[in-house]
C-alpha cells in the first residue's frame, strides 16, 4: 500500500475537452434525423460527464487501488466477515465466455442450469437442507427471502404468528429483515455464557404468536450454543420455525450441519464461507436453503438438492414470488461452485477445523493482554473488549493503530452485547507467520497504550490519510462533488 499522504484529485479534474472517444465507431448504417425519431423536448441539453484519456484513467485507479487494502495485501481479521483468501482460478473461470457473456433469457443454457443444480446438490450435502434458491444477492437479501417464506408458511396455515425472536447478539440485518417482512421483533438477551436462555425462550414461545427464531451458530461471540438441539426443539414444540443465519457457517464445514441442528431455513453467504471475493462491499450471494416441507413456498427459480425428492411431485403454488430479476448473482455462484469442487470433502473439512484452530491460537496469545469477556474455547472468532484499558483508550484507537502496522483491523463495536468490542476472525488461510505478526502487533499496541497513549489515541500515523473526522462527515454531509 502506498503511504504517501497527499490530497488526491478526483477523476473529474483529469478531463480534457479534446479527449476523443476511442471505443465506439461511427454509425455504419443509414441514419435518420434524430428529431424524426424522438421529439426534441425529450432530449437532454448537455451531458456533464468527463472526457478523460485512457492512460489517465488507468493511472488514476491504479493509484487508488494502491491506497486500498484487500485480502491479497495481508491478514484481514474482520470478525463475522470471513475474509479468507480468494483462489485466483475462480476469477479465471468466471471470465470464460460460456459463463460471462450468456444472457439470462437465452434458451441454450444447459451449462448454467447444470451448474446450479449441482451446486444445490453440494450445498444439500454440506448443510443438510433439501432445496435452494439462488435469487438472493446477499446475506441480508437471503434473510428477507427466508422471512417471506416464514410469513407465507403461516399465512397458508391460517396462523396469525407475527413475531420473530432475535437474540441481542444477532447481526443487525436479522431484526431489519424480519421487520421488512412485516414481523415485529422480540429481542432475547443472551445469558452469561453468551447463549440463548432456554427458560426465557420457552416463555416467549408460549405466547403463541411467535413465528420463529433467527439464530447464528456459532454466534457473533464465536461461541457454539451448546443447547442448540433444545432450542430448536422448544421452537418447534410451539409450532415455530428455526432460521439459521449462515454468516458464521465456515467453522462448521465438515463438522456438523445446520439441517441436523434442527433448522428449517437458512441462508448462506457465498462471499464468506465459499470464498467469493467481497469486491469492496459486494456483489455477494445469499442462497436460501429449506427443508422439504417448505419447498412449496420457495421463490422462483429454485433447485432441488436432495436427489431423494421426486421433482415431479413438487408444486410451488404457494411461492412467495420473485426476489430478484432473473437467476440471482450467477457470477458468484460459478466461483462458489468452483471453490467447493476444488476443495472437495477433505479440503472443506480442513477449512472448518483450521479456521477454529487459528482463532483459538490468537485468543490464547491475546487473552493475557486484552480483556476476554467470554472465557471459553471459541469457534472461528472471538471477541475482546477495550475494558480496563488505561488512559481512555478505545477499541477504535486500537483498530486505527493496527492499520499503522500495515494490516487490517478487527471488527469494532460489534457485537453490541460487549462494550468496546474487538471481534477477531483470522480464517483458515492465514499462515502461522501471519497470525504471529497480528498477535505481536496487538501485543505491541497494548504496550503502547501504557507508554504512549496519546500516540495511540491519534492513530493511524502511517496510512494514506490520518484519522478521518466522522462527525464532520455526518453533520455536514458532502456526498458528491
Amino acid at each position, binding site marked *: 500500500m502506498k503511504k504517501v499522504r497527499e490530497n488526491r484529485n478526483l477523476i473529474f479534474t483529469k478531463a480534457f475537452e479534446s479527449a476523443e472517444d476511442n471505443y465506439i465507431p461511427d454509425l455504419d448504417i443509414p441514419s435518420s434525423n434524430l428529431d424524426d425519431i424522438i421529439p426534441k*423536448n425529450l432530449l437532454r441539453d448537455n451531458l456533464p460527464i468527463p472526457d478523460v484519456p485512457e492512460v489517465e484513467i488507468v493511472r488514476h485507479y491504479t493509484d487508488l487501488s494502491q491506497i486500498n487494502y484487500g485480502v491479497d495485501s495481508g491478514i484481514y481479521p474482520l470478525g463475522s466477515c470471513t475474509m479468507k483468501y480468494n483462489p485466483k482460478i475462480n476469477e479465471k473461470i468466471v471470465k470464460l465466455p460460456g459463463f460471462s457473456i450468456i*444472457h439470462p433469457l437465452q434458451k441454450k443454457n444447459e451449462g*448454467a442450469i*447444470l451448474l446450479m443444480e449441482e451446486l444445490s446438490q453440494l450445498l444439500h450435502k454440506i448443510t443438510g437442507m433439501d432445496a435452494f434458491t439462488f435469487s438472493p444477492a446477499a446475506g441480508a437479501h437471503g434473510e428477507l427471502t427466508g422471512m417471506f417464506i416464514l410469513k407465507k408458511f403461516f399465512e397458508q396455515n391460517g396462523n396469525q404468528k407475527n413475531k420473530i425472536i432475535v437474540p441481542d447478539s444477532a447481526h443487525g440485518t436479522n431484526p431489519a429483515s424480519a421487520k421488512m417482512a412485516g414481523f415485529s421483533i422480540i429481542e432475547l438477551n443472551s445469558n452469561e455464557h453468551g447463549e440463548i436462555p432456554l427458560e426465557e425462550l420457552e416463555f416467549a414461545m408460549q405466547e403463541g404468536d411467535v413465528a420463529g427464531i433467527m439464530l447464528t451458530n456459532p454466534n457473533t461471540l464465536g461461541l457454539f450454543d451448546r443447547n442448540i438441539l433444545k432450542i430448536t426443539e422448544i421452537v418447534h414444540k410451539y409450532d415455530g420455525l428455526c432460521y439459521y443465519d449462515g454468516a458464521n457457517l465456515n467453522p462448521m464445514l465438515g463438522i456438523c450441519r445446520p439441517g441436523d441442528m434442527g433448522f428449517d431455513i437458512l441462508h448462506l453467504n457465498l462471499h464468506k464461507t465459499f470464498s467469493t471475493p467481497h469486491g469492496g462491499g*459486494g456483489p455477494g450471494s445469499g442462497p436460501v436453503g429449506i427443508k422439504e416441507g417448505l419447498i412449496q413456498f420457495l421463490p422462483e427459480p429454485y433447485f432441488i438438492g436432495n436427489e431423494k425428492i421426486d421433482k415431479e411431485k413438487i408444486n410451488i403454488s404457494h411461492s412467495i414470488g420473485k426476489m430478484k430479476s432473473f437467476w440471482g448473482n450467477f457470477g458468484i455462484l460459478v466461483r462458489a461452485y468452483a471453490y467447493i469442487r*476444488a476443495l472437495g470433502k477433505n479440503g472443506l473439512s480442513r477449512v472448518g477445523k483450521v479456521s477454529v484452530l487459528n482463532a483459538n491460537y490468537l485468543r490464547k496469545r491475546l487473552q493475557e493482554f486484552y480483556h476476554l469477556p467470554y472465557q471459553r474455547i471459541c469457534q472461528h472468532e472471538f471477541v475482546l473488549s477495550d475494558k480496563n484499558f488505561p488512559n481512555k483508550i478505545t477499541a477504535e484507537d486500537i483498530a486505527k493503530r493496527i492499520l499503522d502496522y500495515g494490516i487490517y483491523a478487527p471488527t469494532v463495536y460489534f457485537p453490541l452485547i460487549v462494550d468496546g468490542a474487538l471481534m477477531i476472525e483470522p480464517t483458515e488461510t492465514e499462515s502461522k507467520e501471519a497470525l504471529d505478526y497480528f498477535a505481536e502487533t496487538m501485543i505491541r499496541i497494548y504496550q503502547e497504550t501504557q507508554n504512549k497513549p496519546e500516540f495511540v489515541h491519534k492513530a493511524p500515523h502511517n496510512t494514506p490519510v490520518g484519522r478521518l473526522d466522522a462527525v464532520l462527515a*455526518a453533520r455536514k454531509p458532502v456526498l458528491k462533488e
Partner: protein
Amino acid sequence: MDFIPHDKKVIKEILNTIGVESIDALFSDIPNEIKIDKLEIDDGLFESDLYNEMHKLSLKNGLYSSSFLGAGCYYHYIPSSVESILSRSEFYTSYTPYQAEASQGNLQAIYEYQTLITRLTEMDISNASMYDGSTALAEAALISTVITRNNRILILEGLHPEYLEVLKTYCWAQDIELEFCTEEEIANKINDDYASLIFQNPNFFGEIEDTGKLINQARNKTSKPLIIECMTDPTCLGILKPPGAYDIDIFVAEGQSFGIPPSFGGPGLGIYTTKKKYLRKTPGRLVGKTKELYGDKIGYILTLQTREQHIRREKAISNICTNEALMALASLIYLVSLGSKGLKKVAYNNIQKSNYVKRKIDKLNNFSVLNQKPTYNEFLIKSPNIDRFLDLCEQDNLLAPLKISIYYPEMENTALVCITEENSIEDIQLFLENAQKCV
C-alpha cells in the same frame, strides 16, 4: 487444493500453544449426535482439472455471434480499461470499507461513482448501489410508503414483468396494495391516498415515455404521492433528458449496461438516486467527503450510518448491507472511459440502428411493429411466422429476440427485438434477411 498453509508440525505447535491435544478438542461444545464423520461429496480437484471441467461445462451454454435479445439485460461494448482495473485485487478482495484510512481507494471511487451518477441523472443524491434494478425499485416503493404513510401504489403499464414480480413480493409482506393503469388513466386514478406512481422509461416494450406529460397528469391532481421512475438500460441517458430535469422523487435503474457483462443476469448494479429532502430516507451505504481529524487532508468515509441496520436494527430504513460495490466501480470506469462523447455515441447508435431495423421490418408483409411511441433500442414485432423467424436467427447463430408470450401469454406471435451499438451492419442484414424469408 485447500489453500491452507499449515503443515502437521505447525498445527502441533499451535495446538501446544492453545493447550489442547487435538483439533477435535476444540469442538467439544458441539453435541456428539450432530457431528458428522465426513462430507458426502467428491474429492477435491487440481487446478488444471478444475479449469478443464469448468471450461467444458461453460461450452454447454450457447455462444452467439450477435445478440438481438435484451429485455432487461443488454450487450454493450465494454472498454478493456474496465476489466483491467477491476482485476486489481486491492479492489476486488477488499471488504466494505469500515476502516476508512485503509480503504481510501475504494471510498474515493464510490464517491466518484455517486458524483457521476448524480451528473448523469441530474438527481441530488446517489447511494453507493443496490443489488439490481428490480430490488432498487422494490425498496423505492417501500420507502414511498414510509414517507407518505400511504399504502397504495399506482403502476403504469409497461413495467418489466420480473421487476413487477419482485415488487409484488416485497409489497405483499407489508400489505401494500398495487394498482395498475394506462397513461390516460393516471389523472382519474391518482389522489392523496397513494404512496407513489411508478413507471418505467423506456418501458419494457422499448417505448420512450413523455415524462413531463406523465408527471403533469399526476401533479395536477395531487402533490402527495412520490413519482418513481425506473430504467433498465440507462445508456439512453446519453441522449434522453434525465430524470432530474423533471420532478422525479426517486429514480432507480439497472446499471448492467454500464460495463458489466451479462453473466446470466447477475451480478448487475442497482442504481438508486433521490432528492436531497429524502436523504435520511435513503437505503444503502453513502460515502461522504471529510477531513482528517488532526490534519487538513481530504478523505472519504462511510457516513449517515444511523439510517442503516447495523445501528438502527429493526428501525432501519432497509436491511441492505452488502451491495454491488465492485459493479459500481465497473460502471464508474465504463462511464469515464467513454466520456460524454462516447456515451452520446452509444445512445445515438442504439437509437439509429434499432430504429433503422424497426422501419425495415415494419415494411415487410406479415410483419408489423406494435409500438406507437418513439423507441430507444427495443421494439415489439408481430408476425404469424414469428416462430420460424426466431428459429432462423438461432440457426444463423444469432441470439434471437424474446418471445414475449413467456411473460404475457395473451400476446401471441410477438417478439421483443433489441438492437444495440454492438450489432454490426452484417448482423443486421442477416437478421433482416431472415425476416424477409418469413414474409
